[in-house]
């Protein structure tokens, strides 16, 4: 009943674990049955291995967290050799979340991934925690156009472009990415935010700014997903603060094909199982036989 078709691939349900919050899946394997998930998006990958950011990487806020991980990852090749094979055994849809330090990196990364059995590529042009290659491409539509259309040429896999809430004109950005060849869009990535250590009289993060996620941002993320869904033809994966089946269904009603759960995994490691059950129960109670009946109804 909850099955959805995302860019030609059938997902058991619309609940995907969001990049950077679910490792490579295996970390959670003891605590939930990964094959019950709709999908898993890998930690953000870059062509070259990255240590990520120095200093404190996490701060808690009212109903949210700010992170400054900075795309720590072992590099695309290591991922393909070591993490991906295990992920592909998890019997769920696997998305490789791909970042880059420049367009060529994105291209090479996409080419490498294209040669694997990964199910989809989620192109991250929206990480606020890296200077080059992250959000730099996610603010102005013209920059996004360039990177998306060039990556598009490097892979025949379904290509989902992950948008930033900092896009100057989000709807224009979404349309631009669609026109540049994206098969789908996911939004939102984190909001650029800040925290200050009063006693030290300094920013908490070495980079000064970092990314806010969690239930705090849900109302804004939902609005953005709604705006984008009204404008584009390609499927949209909605995320930002989803922590319950009701939250997830709001995004579906706003038009999302699937949803992702990020920060909420830290509230309860098997919260995705609750979310799936709650969605199921709501549909049962309300006589909804397929999510298609309510998708975009609002």
């Amino acid at each position, binding site marked *: 009943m909850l099955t959805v078709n995302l860019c030609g691939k059938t997902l058991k349900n619309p609940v995907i674990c969001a990049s950077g919050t679910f*490792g490579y899946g295996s*970390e959670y394997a003891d605590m939930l049955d990964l094959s019950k998930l709709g999908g898993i998006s890998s930690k953000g990958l870059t062509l070259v291995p990255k240590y990520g950011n120095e200093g404190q990487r996490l701060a808690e806020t009212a109903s949210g967290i700010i992170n400054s*991980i900075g795309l720590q990852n072992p590099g695309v090749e290591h991922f393909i050799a070591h993490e991906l094979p295990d992920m592909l055994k998890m019997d769920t849809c696997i998305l490789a979340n791909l970042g880059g330090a420049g367009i060529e990196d994105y291209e090479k990364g996409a080419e490498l991934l294209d040669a694997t059995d990964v199910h989809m590529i989620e192109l991250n042009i929206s990480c606020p925690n890296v200077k080059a290659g992250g959000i730099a491409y996610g603010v102005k539509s013209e920059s996004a156009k360039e990177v998306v259309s060039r990556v598009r040429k490097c892979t025949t896999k379904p290509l989902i472009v992950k948008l930033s809430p900092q896009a100057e004109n989000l709807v224009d950005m979404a349309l631009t990415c669609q026109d540049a060849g994206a098969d789908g869009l996911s939004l939102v990535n984190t909001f650029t935010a800040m925290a200050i250590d009063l006693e030290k009289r300094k920013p908490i993060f070495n980079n000064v700014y970092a990314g806010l996620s969690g239930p705090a941002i849900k109302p804004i993320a939902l609005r953005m997903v709604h705006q984008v869904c009204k404008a584009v033809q390609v499927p949209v994966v909605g995320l930002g603060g989803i922590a319950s089946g009701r939250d997830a269904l709001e995004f579906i009603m706003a038009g999302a094909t699937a949803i992702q759960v990020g920060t909420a995994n*830290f509230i309860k*490691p098997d919260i995705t199982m609750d979310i799936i059950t709650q969605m199921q129960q709501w549909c049962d109670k309300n006589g909804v036989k397929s999510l298609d009946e309510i998708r975009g109804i609002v």
Partner: protein
Amino acid sequence: MAITYQKALITANEQMTDTVFLLKAQWSAPTQPGQFFMLRTWDKAPLLSRPISVHNWENGIVEFLYEVRGTGTDLLSQAKAGDFIELTGALGKGFPVENISGKVAVVSGGIGIAPLYYVVRALVQKGCTVDFYCGFRDKPYGLEKFEALCSNVYLATDSGNYGVKGFVTDLLQPEGYDAVLTCGPEIMMEKIAHKAMAAGTAVYVSKESHMACGIGACLACTCKTKGGPKSVCKDGPVFKGEDIYADC
């Protein structure tokens, strides 16, 4: 051992000092000295669970010794016997008890004492001789249990009202010990590690970090080690001193 997330029954939550509490909960699966759990007795706020070390694990009861520092630990301190606590664990790599033998110095600073009782127990059990060095700001707590197991207990306090006035780092002479184990403020551990390494004594430190997942998934707790970036929550919290303080 598999990591599990489950609700556990609280059997006690005793106040030890003004700010320190000892919480006990039912937990039948084995835990290792130096491991920790992510704890939660609240619903939505604060968002994150809190990492707390295993103070002891015996007869199906896990014990947590914690200091109230902010919102989370304050809420924790309000839990009562009969309430449930959400636990994810046991997490991380603890002290390599199997590799330690002979004469051991265990050094704590403040609430850093929390993970050390369980490891002292394990060391004594396997036949080690343990000296316990501890530093407190003022009034010490929980020492009786250490006195019962250790050959010597050395105490330093900032105030000088108890034990020697000064830093525990000054008390320790690592020469003559086969291993030094330590937990406490970062600066203290660094000093202890340097001293031990200079004396050629094996040293293990239990590190802290801000944590979201506790299981190696979010990479919030990464620290640099000789072997590359490691997650404090998964590859630690216990590390060999030389892996962390590489410049010695």
